[in-house]
């Protein structure tokens, strides 16, 4: 290594910043910060990869140096067990053959010592907790977990049924088993995993070294539940969904595991898919080779592997099978589809259960039609855009997610087994799109305004080039507009998204020529989203409804996705002040999602929070609060720093404020702002919404000295950063104005309030309560500037409107009443 100390300081600085970021943001920031300096990038990348790998290593001093007995040796006792010999060792620990010292029959067991440096107490506590669940797992294909404990030196160990057998991959390779035999073995694995899932146990570390085949051909799965026992992150009270990536093996880990998202039964399905892939082709879907871990993970999260039938042509395939062509024929089509369905990136698009996977394998073996279907590009693209659209209302999504996501969907098209010519056509297109985006990113110059702006600017600059680059290809022009437009939308720049998405819609209509397509429905949906952002609520509603009607008439509609779409309709209805109707819709959406949404689906907490917001609006604070908390908890389970957590805390803060619990409201408001700002930056609409919530609380808590500079900060960014259509802008004027009036500067306060009211009236319907609230504030200011009569009139009107919209008992109505009373004194 040829690093100098000066150079090391740079490495250190870049590393320090990136290490704090969530994995998905790291890559962009890294690319930006090390632009044109591949050496620096490689250095930081390898250190980040090492940081991911290091786990607890080096955290503790090498204690065992002084303990000759750190590693048990043959003939030694561990608890009640007598160690017979070492069987093997790996990252997680060492495995020994042993038997109970007090057992006359000397029943053999496998004793697994957990590697040092892990928290023995926590592991043991967890073991005791989980023991009953794990002890329930009695299945002929599962090696039973018998016991567990801690050695005198404080090292945890587990005792399992001793299994005599060979690793499944070697078993297959050594015997050169034909495909049918391999599938039979695989179905035994499925049976075991399915049984465990039914007992609420996820394996989380499925891989060939955990699957042994006995001489009689019986498969035994090892280490059930162990991964979770040892994972310090796993919550003990969540049997089905746990986060944490600690002990799994990268090559078999699902994308959600690699990204630290919740691990569910779908993660086991993915790992089973990897194993099936390996059993059929003799290689892994993602060859790790010499690539840095970060790069391997990136590929595993973003790109789609070659289908098994294609993978065998590049290697020998299935070990040493001489007739590769025959094997290829056996794999092509249905087996490809089965494997690729298990390996889908989105957990909810894989097989719904291990049972379904096992059944498809069985159907294939029996010559029956299988259930797995290939992915198609328009479907994928539509899904992608739409899902992001649904999520964005509450969160805002980073640039990479979309570009990376588009890359993934296009790759998928490349491998999808559609009709030959269509697949060919789409593959070519996918390559063109990929190439196009690559050029865009490469063209980005680091010397411009700043790293983040640079990429956006670069993309912006390429928009005019779309039409000349693809003059003869309307499909491409549409797809690129749609992708770039959604990117701008997702990062909170609806002004740039709007024209692109509108054009995409126009073009899509030409492509569809009257047919109802997924892409067409999605294009409509996207434009509806833009209209919503601009505050054109009625237009947005009608577009959303048209789009939903199209989705619902499609043959391969997905009820969960459709429910999420209706969630948008409910939002728009609510924003137009039709509260009762919106509550009804939200309630239905939440019910549908509670039934259908996969664990970890962000759509559910988003819907719950939206529902709760409407309840707040209706003054049903008691009902709303637990819903917010549920949404926050659901989201925190996957990532406590997710901006959505902050986004859900904002309405909670308002709800608490309205319920009169100012202190709790303030703390929720502050947390909301801290989380969103850290994740999204200060200018993001979601951050601004969080700030708006906090300001509301601060003003009402009488903390004007703190609130005023914050409000002024928002106003200062009007125009360039914050459009007039952003509700937060009008609110900032109102909050500043109210504070000015309260601190004795009624005249300038009145000016600010009028501007705030004007901005609000431009977005909201005239009878909306928030407009009345603004007028009530103006009335108060008028009275204080000496226009007593005018002020009282306005206060009276505003109070009546609020009473009509929210009821007499609502916090805002009571506030207005108090203002009116004060003015009449």
């Amino acid at each position, binding site marked *: *290594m040829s*690093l*100098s*100390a000066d150079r*090391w300081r740079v490495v*250190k600085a870049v*590393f*320090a910043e990136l*290490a704090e970021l969530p994995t998905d943001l790291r890559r962009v920031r890294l690319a930006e910060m090390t632009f044109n300096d591949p050496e620096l990038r490689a250095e930081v990348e*390898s*250190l*980040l*990869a*090492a*940081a991911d*790998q*290091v*786990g607890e*290593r*080096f*955290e*503790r*001093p*090498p*204690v*065992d*140096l*002084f*303990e*000759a*007995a*750190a590693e048990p040796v043959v003939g030694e006792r561990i608890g009640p067990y007598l160690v017979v010999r*070492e*069987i*093997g*060792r*790996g*990252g997680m*620990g060492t*495995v020994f053959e042993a038997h109970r010292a007090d057992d006359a029959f000397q029943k053999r067991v496998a004793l697994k010592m957990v*590697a*040092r440096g892990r928290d023995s107490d926590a592991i043991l506590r967890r073991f005791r907790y989980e023991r009953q669940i794990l002890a329930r797992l009695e299945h002929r294909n599962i090696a039973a977990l018998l016991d567990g404990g801690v050695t*005198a*030196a*404080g090292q945890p160990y587990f005792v399992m049924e001793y299994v005599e057998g060979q690793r499944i991959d070697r078993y297959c390779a050594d015997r050169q088993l034909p495909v049918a035999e391999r599938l039979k073995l695989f179905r035994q694995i499925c049976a075991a995993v399915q049984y465990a899932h039914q007992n609420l146990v996820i394996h989380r570390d499925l*891989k*060939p*070294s955990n699957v042994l085949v006995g001489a009689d051909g019986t498969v035994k799965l090892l280490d059930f539940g162990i991964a979770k026992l040892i994972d310090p992150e796993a919550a003990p009270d969540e049997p089905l969904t746990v986060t944490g990536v600690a002990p799994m*093996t*990268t*090559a078999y880990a699902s994308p959600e595991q690699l990204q630290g998202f919740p691990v569910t039964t779908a993660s086991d399905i993915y790992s089973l898919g990897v194993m099936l892939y390996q059993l059929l082709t003799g290689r892994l879907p993602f060859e*790790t080779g010499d690539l840095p871990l970060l790069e391997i993970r990136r590929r595993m999260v973003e790109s789609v592997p070659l289908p098994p039938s294609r993978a065998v042509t590049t290697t020998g395939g299935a070990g040493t099978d001489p007739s590769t062509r025959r094997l290829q024929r056996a794999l092509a089509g249905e087996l490809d589809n089965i494997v690729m369905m298990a390996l889908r990136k989105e957990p909810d698009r894989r097989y719904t259960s291990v049972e379904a996977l096992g059944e498809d394998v069985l159907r294939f073996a029996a010559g029956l039609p299988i259930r797995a279907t290939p992915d198609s590009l328009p479907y994928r693209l539509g899904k992608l855009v739409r899902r992001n659209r649904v999520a964005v209302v509450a969160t805002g999504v980073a640039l990479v997610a979309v570009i990376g996501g588009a890359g993934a969907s296009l790759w998928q098209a490349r491998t999808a087994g559609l009709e030959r010519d269509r697949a060919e056509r789409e593959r070519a297109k996918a390559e063109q799109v990929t190439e196009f985006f690559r050029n865009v990113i490469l063209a980005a110059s680091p010397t411009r305004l700043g790293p983040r702006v640079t990429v956006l600017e670069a993309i912006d600059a390429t928009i005019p080039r779309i039409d000349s680059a693809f003059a003869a290809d309307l499909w491409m022009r549409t797809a690129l507009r749609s992708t770039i437009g959604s990117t701008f939308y997702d990062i909170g720049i609806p002004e740039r998204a709007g024209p692109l998405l509108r054009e995409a819609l126009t073009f899509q209509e030409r492509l569809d020529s009257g047919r109802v397509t997924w892409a067409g429905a999605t294009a409509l949906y996207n434009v509806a989203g833009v209209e919503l952002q601009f505050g054109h609520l009625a237009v947005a509603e009608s577009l959303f409804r048209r789009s939903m009607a199209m989705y619902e008439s499609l043959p391969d509609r997905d009820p969960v996705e459709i429910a999420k779409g209706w969630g948008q309709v409910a939002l728009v209805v609510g924003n137009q002040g039709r509260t009762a109707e919106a509550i009804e819709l939200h309630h239905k959406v939440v019910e549908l999602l509670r039934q259908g949404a996969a664990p970890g689906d962000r759509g559910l907490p988003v819907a719950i929070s939206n529902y709760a917001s409407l309840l707040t609006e209706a003054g049903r604070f008691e009902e709303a609060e637990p819903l917010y908390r549920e949404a926050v908890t659901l989201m925190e389970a996957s990532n406590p720093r997710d901006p959505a957590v902050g986004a859900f805390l904002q309405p909670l803060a308002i709800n608490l404020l309205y319920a009169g619990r100012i202190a709790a409201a303030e703390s929720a408001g502050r947390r909301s702002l801290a989380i969103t700002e850290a994740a999204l930056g200060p200018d993001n609409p979601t951050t601004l919404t969080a700030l708006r919530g906090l300001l509301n609380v601060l003003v009402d808590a009488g903390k004007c000295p703190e609130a005023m500079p914050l409000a002024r900060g928002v106003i200062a960014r009007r125009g360039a950063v914050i459009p007039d259509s952003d509700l937060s802008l009008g609110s900032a004027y109102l909050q500043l104005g109210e504070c000015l009036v309260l601190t004795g500067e009624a005249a300038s306060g009145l000016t600010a309030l009028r501007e705030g009211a004007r901005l609000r009236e431009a977005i909201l319907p005239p009878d909306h309560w928030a407009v009345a609230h603004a007028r009530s504030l103006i009335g108060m200011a008028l009275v204080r500037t000496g226009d007593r009569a005018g002020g009282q009139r306005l206060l009276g009107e505003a109070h009546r409107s609020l009473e009509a919209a929210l009821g007499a008992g609502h916090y805002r109505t009571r506030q207005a009443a108090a203002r009116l009373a004060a003015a009449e004194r």
Partner: protein
Amino acid sequence: MERLLPVVYEELKVLAASYLRRERVDHTLSPTGLVHEAYLKLVDQRSVGWEGRSHFFGIAAQAMRRILVDHARRRIAKKRGRQFQVTLDTAAERAGAPPDEEVAAVDEALARLAALDPRQARLVELRYFAGLSIEEAADVLGVSPATVKRDWVLARAWLQRELRPEA
């Protein structure tokens, strides 16, 4: 400071040896324990002028490093020639290096790290060899615990990379 090192070294060695002679079954011994015990003994004697606890810890960490590394090297030498073990897991997996080899490798890697970033190398000494807490290490290095935490993440990543398990 160098003047004090031999004194601390001898004291720690004596302590370590006395532990090694004891019945090992019910004793878990940590370098942290040793360092604190040595501190109590030496400070009690008042034979040397200490500039406070932090000063002592800094020196003790160096001494612990020497003791632990010597000890590991001797055991590695003894082990040579014994049968080698089979690895069960795939190569893609992280292989845990046996402690003796790891200690020796950390020692060698530290020499390289010291050339790049002396503070980080000392931090490894304090945390890994002497088992000091983040706060204690911050005291010794005269920086904030937050800085130590940041440095420690990078130092461990660096070690992980440098000590990549041999294929």
